[in-house]
Each structure stands twice: as C-alpha cells, then as structure tokens.
C-alpha cells in the first residue's frame, strides 16, 4: 500500500499542470484580452464588422466628427471635414491603427478589464478631441494634391489643433481608398530624411557643448573637405558663424561643427530632443526618429550633422522638439483627447498632461532668435503677419530621380498664437517653397 501511495504523485502532478495551464490562460488574457475583444466579429461592439457601439467623437468646438446613429457609424456631413479628420478619427474597420476608432476603442466602447463591454447605459463613451475641424480643412486644402502632413499644437497647453495627413479618403465613399499609404497618419507614423532641419539639433548641441559656440567660425568654400572627401554647400560662405550659418543653411559649417562636437555629444543632444526614442502621442505609439552614427566614418558623420547620411525624422517628434524650443526648453507633450465623457455626460477621464525638459531656457532663447532671424531673412515675415514665426526649412533628398520632400518646422513666438508646427510635403521640391506656403496658409487661420 505504501508504494501505491507514493505513486499517487502522478495524480497531484496532473492537478498542478492543470492549475498552471489555467493561470497561464489568465496571464495571456491580461496581456491580449483587449486585442481579442476588439476583433471585428465581436457583436458587442461591431455590427457586420463595422464599429457601432462607440460613442461620439467631437472636435474642440463640439463639431461632431463621428457618432453612432440607428445602429450605424456616421461621420460629419461635410466631405472636407471627413477627409481632413479621418486619420485622427479613424475608419470603422480598423485600417487606421492610430485613429481613435482603433487606438481608443476601449474608451469609446466603454470597455475595461473589470466590466468588460458591460455598462449600465448600454452605450459607449464620448471623446472630445483637441483638433479644430476648420483649421484641419484649411490644412487639407493647402496640401492640395500633395502627399504630406501638417501638425500644429499649442506649445503652452499641449493641445493638438491640427493633424492632417494626405493622401486621405472620404469614409462615406464606397470606393476603395487609393493613394500610397492612404491609411497612414504621416504625422505619427511617417519617417523622412530630415535634411537641413537637422541643423537645429547640431546648433543646439554646439550651444550646449562648445563654450564659444556663438562666436566661433568655420570656413566654407562652396563646401569643405572632410577626411579626403568633398562635402558640398549651396553657397560660398567663407568664414561663417553659427547665427549666419543657420540663416544661410551652410552645410560646411554644420558638418565641421558635428566633427568638433564628436559622435557622443551630438547623439546625446539628439536623444534629448527625442531621437532614438519610442514616443507616444496620448498613448498611441509613433514611429521613431533615428540618429545612429556610432559606426560611421568621418565624412558620413559630417553629412549626418546636416541631416543626410542615415538620419530619419518622425514629424511628431519634431513637433515636440519645436514645442521645446518655443516653451523655453520645456516641451509640453502634445495630446489629442481633451476629455472622455460617459453617455450621461459625466467626465470619466481628462487629458494626459506630460512634459519633457529638452534644453536650458538660455539655449532655447538663443535658438529661437536664430530661427526668427532665419524667417525674417529668407521666407519673408510678411507672409506670417503678426505671428512672429521662428522656423527652419529642410529638403529631404529621396533617391536620384524623384523630387525631394519639402520640410518646414517652427513655431509662433506671439503670445496670442502659441503654436508649434511641422509641415512636410512629399516630392514638392526645396523647403523654401511648398512647405512654407502651406504653413503660412494654415497658420493664418489660427489668428
């Protein structure tokens, strides 16, 4: 009998294995449950694969962008508003993963891990967004037939007032949306070569690490030779200082500054302003800006200092960076969801407030004034009347034959219009063209 009892360990082994399996399943449930729940076959929140349980989504002025009516999901009645806000709102089938319909599905449907899809009213929650639908429409019109994005946010409060991405589509249309990356919100998920807008990072790093940064000079002879190779510049700037180098976007100056700084210091500054980090906008993961020079040779490192080589920039990250310069070094994190209310109008969640110290107030002021001079000299301040725009353009080369992308990043210094912006227009030529024109057209509507 004793030996029989000893053998009974196999019974408890089976019991223990079963219990372990049960806990394993519950572990998987806590990790993946939300994903399982949001499968479009779930009739608790979808009807025929279309999201219907969700509450309404409105813009900052109460304009309804999407709501559920009679068992279907309906968008704003104006086509231009639908097209301008679809990337923020999201489609009903989950193609736009960063849209509210996907990223805030749980909040919209009133789902949480404790209650599941249950709530007493049987209705979802409402989202009030920070975007302004009329500014968004202005951005959509300004972008015209170009692909690109316009992102604008209030650098004092963090509210994103404009987040438009093209190509876009009308969710009410039955046609299958066309256009390369039509479901991609380029502000959050795009990455581009930065071109000259990266010079702002190099300039900031110089201010941070070189005592004589504001007075030092480098030679520009239509370029400069680095490690035996030629790095060209668009002009012959002779002996040039930081302030005028930024004004004239001198490649030679910034390449030599990069070499003077060294890979470590420049990378450290880049990472402080958001490079190589997985940033999130209101909890929605964004594409990562990349600055990686640890294995590069000197000439490549020189090019990286002026936004070439393998540098990549996510427009949202630059929006945060611009906010940091504008707000005296402290970057208030941009957010989109102003508040969440339940079906009875009770506020259940307020906006996510967060900020990052990117640089000292002194360096922010110095950089801002250089950017201000740049706008005055190059782009014509009259185009941004009363806004006191500080900015920098960039041209991102894309292969040999295609027209380069056009960047314009910056902010308004005016107290009454505390907005930072990033604009990128694909295949639109040099930055001092399409991007500045589009920025001017949209910023005008903010006054």
């Amino acid at each position, binding site marked *: *009998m*004793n*030996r*029989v*009892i000893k*053998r*009974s360990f*196999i*019974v*408890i082994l*089976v*019991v223990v*294995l*079963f*219990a372990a*399996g*049960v806990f*394993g*399943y*519950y572990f998987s*449930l806590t990790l*993946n*449950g*939300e994903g*399982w*729940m949001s*499968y479009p*076959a*779930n*009739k*608790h929140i979808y009807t025929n694969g279309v999201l219907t349980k969700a509450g309404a989504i409105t813009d900052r002025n109460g304009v309804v962008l999407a709501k559920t009516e009679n068992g279907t999901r309906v968008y704003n009645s104006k086509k231009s508003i639908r097209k301008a806000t679809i990337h923020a709102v999201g489609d009903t089938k989950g193609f736009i993963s960063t849209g509210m319909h996907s990223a805030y599905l749980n909040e919209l449907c009133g*789902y*949480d*891990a*404790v*209650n*599941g*899809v*249950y709530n*007493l009213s049987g209705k979802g929650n409402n989202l009030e967004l920070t975007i302004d639908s009329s500014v968004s429409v202005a951005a959509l019109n300004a972008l015209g037939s170009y692909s690109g994005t316009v992102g604008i946010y209030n650098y004092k409060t963090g509210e994103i007032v404009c987040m438009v991405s093209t190509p876009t589509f009308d969710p009410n249309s039955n046609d299958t949306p066309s256009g390369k990356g039509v479901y991609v919100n380029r502000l959050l998920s795009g990455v581009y070569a930065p071109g000259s807008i990266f010079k702002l990072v190099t300039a900031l790093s110089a201010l941070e690490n070189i005592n004589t940064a504001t007075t030092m000079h480098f030679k520009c002879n239509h370029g400069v030779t680095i490690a035996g190779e030629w790095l060209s510049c668009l002009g012959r700037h002779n002996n040039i200082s930081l302030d005028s180098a930024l004004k004239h976007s001198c490649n030679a100056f910034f390449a030599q500054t990069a070499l003077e700084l060294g890979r470590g210091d420049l990378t450290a500054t880049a990472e402080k302003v958001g490079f190589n980090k997985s940033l999130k906008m209101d909890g929605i993961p964004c594409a990562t800006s990349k600055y990686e020079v640890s294995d590069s040779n000197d000439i490549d490192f020189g090019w990286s200092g002026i936004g070439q080589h393998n540098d990549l920039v996510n427009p949202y990250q630059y929006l945060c960076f611009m906010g940091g310069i504008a707000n005296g070094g402290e970057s208030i994190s941009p957010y989109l969801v102003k508040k969440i209310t339940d079906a009875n109008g009770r506020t259940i969640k307020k906006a996510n407030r967060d900020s990052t110290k990117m640089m000292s107030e002194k360096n922010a002021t110095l950089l801002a004034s250089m950017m201000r001079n740049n706008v005055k000299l190059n782009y014509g301040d009259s185009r941004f009347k009363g806004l006191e725009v500080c900015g920098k353009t960039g041209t991102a080369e894309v292969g040999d034959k295609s027209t380069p992308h056009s960047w314009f990043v910056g902010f308004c210094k005016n107290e009454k219009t505390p907005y930072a912006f990033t604009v990128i227009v694909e295949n639109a030529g040099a930055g001092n063209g399409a991007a500045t024109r589009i920025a001017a057209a949209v910023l005008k509507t903010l006054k």
Partner: protein
Amino acid sequence: MSGIYPYFFAVSRWVTPLLTVAIALLWVSCFIKNKKVSSPLAALVTRDGISLDIYAMEIIIGRYKSADLIIPINGVEKRHALLCFEKGHWHIAPIMGKIAVNLQNVSRMAPLEYGDKISIAGQILTFKYKEDENILSKRPPSGGLALIFLTLFQIIVALQICLNVWNNLDPLIPAAFLLLIVGQWAYFLVGQNIKNFKMLLEIPALYLITLGLSLVSALSPDQLLKQIICFGIGLVGFILLTFILKYRGFVIKAQRVVMVLSLALLYYTAFFGTKINSARNWLSIGSFSFQPSEIVKVAFVAMGGISLYILTKKPARRIEFLVYCLLSMGALAIMLDFGAVAIFFVIMLTALTLRLESPIIISGIFGAAVVGAGGIILLYPYIARRFGAWLHAWDYADSLGYQQTRTMMSFASGGMLGVGPGNGNLKNIAAAETDLIFGVLGEEFGAIIALAAALSVVAIGIYGFRLIKNSTCLFDAVTVGGATVQIIFQTALNIFGSVDILPLTGVTFIFVSIGGSSLISALMMLSFFKSAELHKQSSKQWRDSE
C-alpha cells in the same frame, strides 16, 4: 418587474464574485481543518510489547522498505505475507515466506481473529484491535457555512436569470433552482447523521452544478426539463454506485459481464450510432439520444480498479484489462471521438501507474500510443487537418480557428464581472453550450466566476489526491486516481481546447456543459470519491458492530 433588471444586475454582478470568494475561502479552511490524522486499524504486537501498527486494509509484511509492515530480521522474506481486510474479515496469506496462525501452518488465505498469534520466522506476533488514539475533541467543520454562501449565490443568479426574461419566464427555471437548494440542504442534513461527514467534495461539485443549471436556464430553457430528469437519473446512479461499491465481492464477479456489455455498447454505437458534430458517438432510442462513451467511462474507471486491485493473491488480470482498454479505445477511434480516446488512455495510464507496473512498461505503452497516434495521422491526414489551426487560431480566425477565436473574443468581452447570464453572443455559435462553455462562462459570468469554475475542478482534484493518500485499500486508490485524473484531464481538454492551448477535441466540462449523458456520467464519477471516503471507516465499524 423586468424594469428593475438592469439595476439589479448592475449591483448583483459585484456580489456573486464576492460570494464565490467567500465560498472558496470557506472550502479551503474546511479542507485544512479536516486534515485527517491517520489512525491505525489494527496492530501486530511482539512479545516485548512493541506494536507494529496496520494503517491499511491491504498490507504486505516484509523485510525491507518496499513492504508496508517491516520486520527487519533474518528469515523474513522481502514480501513475506499479505494481511488484508475483505468481506468483513481480516485475512492473512503467505507470499514468499512461511507463516502459521495459532501454531497451525497456513498455505493459503486464512481468516484472522483479534488475539490470534501469528508466527513469522520464529517470531510470535499477536494480532490486536487498536483503539483510535487521536480522537478529536472538537468536530471539524462539515461545510455548512460554505453551503449558506452557496445558497445565496444560487438565489442571486436565479434572480438575475429570471428578471432578465421576466415577461416570458418559464416557471420551471425558479422551480429548478428551488429544487436544487432544497435538495442540497436535505442532503446536508441527512449527512449530519453520518460519522465524519463533510461537504469537501460536494461544495465544488455543487458550485459547478449551479453554473450548469444557470447556463441551461439562460441559454436553452427548452432543454431544462431534460437536464433535470438526467440530473435525477445521475443522482440515483450516484447513490446506487456508492452503495454497490461497498460490496467488492459482487463488483469483482460482475467485472467480466460489465466489460463485455460496455464493449458491445461502444461497438454498436461506432457502427450504428448517430453522427453529431463530426463524431459518430450518439445512440438514439426514439426521441431520446445519449452518448454511450460517457456512461462507459464510469465502468472503465471501475474496471481499472477491479482488474488491478488484488495485490498478490491471484495473477492480476493485467492482460485482460489491457485488451479491454485497447478494444474500448478502438471503438472510440472508429467514432472519430478523439477527445474520448485521450481520456480513456489517461485513465488507463493512471490505473497502471497506481498498480505499480514498472516504469518501463508504462513508458512502453505511452511510447506505443505516441507512435500509434502518429501513424494514424500519417495514414489519415484529414484527422490532422481537423486540428490544423491549433496554436494558430488567430491566423485562421474565420475558418479553422473560428470557434477558438470566438471563445477568446467573447471571454475577453465579459471582463472580470461578465455581461450577465443570457446576455452574451457566444451562445449563438455551434457547440457553444458544450465544447465552448468556458467562453460562455467568461462572457456572461465574468472571468472571476469562470476561474472559480476551473478552480472547483482543481479542488476536486486536490481532494481526490488526499483521498488516495489516506486510502486503506488499493481499489479505492486506483478508482479515485482514475476518476480524479479523468475529471481534470477532461476539463483541461475542454477549457484549453476552446482557447487554443490544446487542440479542440469536443469534450464536455463536467457539470457545466449542457448535456444529459455527461451530467449522469459526472455524477456517477463522484461515487468513487464518496465510496472511498466511507470505506475508510468500514473495518472499524465492523468491530464496533460486533
């Protein structure tokens, strides 16, 4: 009345998980306080007055540690003699050594009375009755408090179901809950007259039965009457089988008849049965249909106990049992009921392990099974295709993984507290009431109560393990082992199959899945536990009654 349902549910959905936690804690406390202090049944006393206590009804006297009662002196063989309590009497039989009782040489099984003198290798030992040394001054809890909380749970869930469909409420639903509540209290009160009665097995079983009743009431009230009738049949079966198992002699005699009958039933079904959900495992008599494999499962556990229980007396019917196992599994394989094949196989392995077959034989059988299963899959690739989505259910979310993904999706939709009995969507999917019932539990009752359901099975398993540890005879150990492993393994196949951790084989969750045959089978399976629980006392009671 139906207007108050939303508010009643909004509050009560928090109360039922709390009651569940209370029931669980009370069960654990009852389990710990009932920790059995094992007391000897009898003893062999040496001339010097040293008492060698006997704790089981079948023990081997031998020289080394492998024996149950060790006499470490020269002349005692490794397995010298067998002492056993059978047919109401103690017996002794020689195995490898020579023995004498009251100086009379004994060559075969001989009855033994208290006071008899047994000679082993020149030693004289007196067989004596042993008084209980550890008489507990305070009676341990029998589970009445847990039953009170369970009753509250039942009332609230019944109200949730009834209020939800108040305007066309089937009066059978509240009647069934009332019947269950009255029945369980009658059982408890009658049980108070039985020595050492406790509800350790019954509390988790009743919790599962409550969930099963709730699900059939909320999901398919048209099947409720049938379910109640089957519960009645199962209850009668449970009481009868518990009673029959007391008469080992009769059970042993009936063995061959049961084997032949159960095989006939299985093969008849395999060739002339009805096919439902890809397996031909149903038998229809008029409008009444049932799954023979569910009933045969009970016989199978008992056969494992009988065939293998006699330690040394006769050559154990090992070959006979193995042939019976193979033929049974063959019939199930012909039915394409692979879930049942796996369950029968695991019961067989458990029986063989507890019967002390050598690890080589057991691993040989296991290896042969793996090779056999591989061979079948190679020969009949369509069988493998049925399990093609296993571990990749989301990749085949709308085809092969349809049922699994819907289960996970619905389970997650319920959150911790559920959307309420009858308010889910998973119930509309094929086989949701049986194979996917765990998903329905999660969706409608919430993850906490679904976890409690799974842990109820764990509780039955732990209780079964302790019964084996305390068991005094091999038949009890082998049958309780078989029943425990069967219950755990089948529930594992059900739960893990529906959430894509194991292949989906289509077996039921005991007491919870809707279905008459499985309910009867599950109730009868509990007989083995109850019988072992009561049997422990029988040798003492025999002395007391004389």
